[in-house]
């Protein structure tokens, strides 16, 4: 049975993906309350690859930043960067699921669709 777990971004950062990957091995779909940045995504992929085995083929992953950055002006970019730095949290969402159970996560500009 596939479980769904909501995880705060701070927890993921603190545990450096270790706990998260263990959960993925235990048939759990993870939802993080922030968008991982590109370097974090690459690190997660590399860490996942270390654990690939006959029973665990990897992950499906997708993250989304709900803010419309492309429409931001210079001042708005500076303001948001400052807020992000002060709060220490990136807005958005990340969904990660074990590939044996999640067929794909389709990413539209403003929504994520998970195919089980």
């Amino acid at each position, binding site marked *: 049975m596939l479980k769904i777990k909501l995880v705060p971004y701070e927890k993921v950062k603190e545990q450096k993906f270790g706990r998260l990957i263990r959960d993925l091995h235990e048939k759990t779909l993870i939802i993080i309350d922030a968008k991982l940045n590109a370097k974090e*995504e*690459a690190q997660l*992929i590399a860490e996942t690859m270390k654990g690939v085995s006959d029973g665990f*083929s*990897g992950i499906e992953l997708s993250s989304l930043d709900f803010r419309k950055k492309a429409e931001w002006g210079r001042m708005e970019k500076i303001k948001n960067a400052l807020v992000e730095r002060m709060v220490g949290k990136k807005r958005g969402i990340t969904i990660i699921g074990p590939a044996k159970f999640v067929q794909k996560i389709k990413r539209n500009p403003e929504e994520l669709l998970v195919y089980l």
Partner: protein
Amino acid sequence: MVIRRMRNGLVLIIRSLFRRKRDVKIGLYGPVNSGKTTLANRICVDWLGEEMGRVSAIPHETREIQMKERVKIKNNGKSLTFNLIDTPGIATKIDFEDFVRAGLKKAVAKERAREATKGVIESIKWLDSMDMVLVVLDSTKDPINQVNITILGNLDARNIPVLIVGNKTDLRGSNLARIRNAFPKYPIIGISAKKGENIQDFYSHLIKEL
């Protein structure tokens, strides 16, 4: 586009000031089976007279980093010398059963999967060493997927110049406009590495972008 080129030039000048003198490294990155090694072979045959690696319809044929040193290309009176690095395709999942379905024996498939996972890790590690990256995408496929987004995001975060190569333009279903719409801020060139279509234009872009 002009600002991006100026920024790329500035990044390269700054890098050359702070690093010891060495050859420029151009990496081929992309998802599995997008034609990275086919393009590497095309470049190497055109300018060195020999291929770089084996290609196959079975995914993850390239499972180790491969490099050809001192590749010198010329176009319209300009030239560029670089080390060409072909990387294993990046994937978020590798299932040995996919290789079995492609016709490999179970033991061989498992070994291929094991090597492929190492290849993905190596590709990610090598990102920091690149001076420029050619992101090779299969132009018949939807470009909006997590692997492509993660690769481009990582190159952006490292300020590494990028040229997106929309490969397989000879195939029905090739759609360069889809890639342009997905990644509007990057320079994009459409080619068929296998057939050599638009390859001179590609060399011209390569010299221009670097």
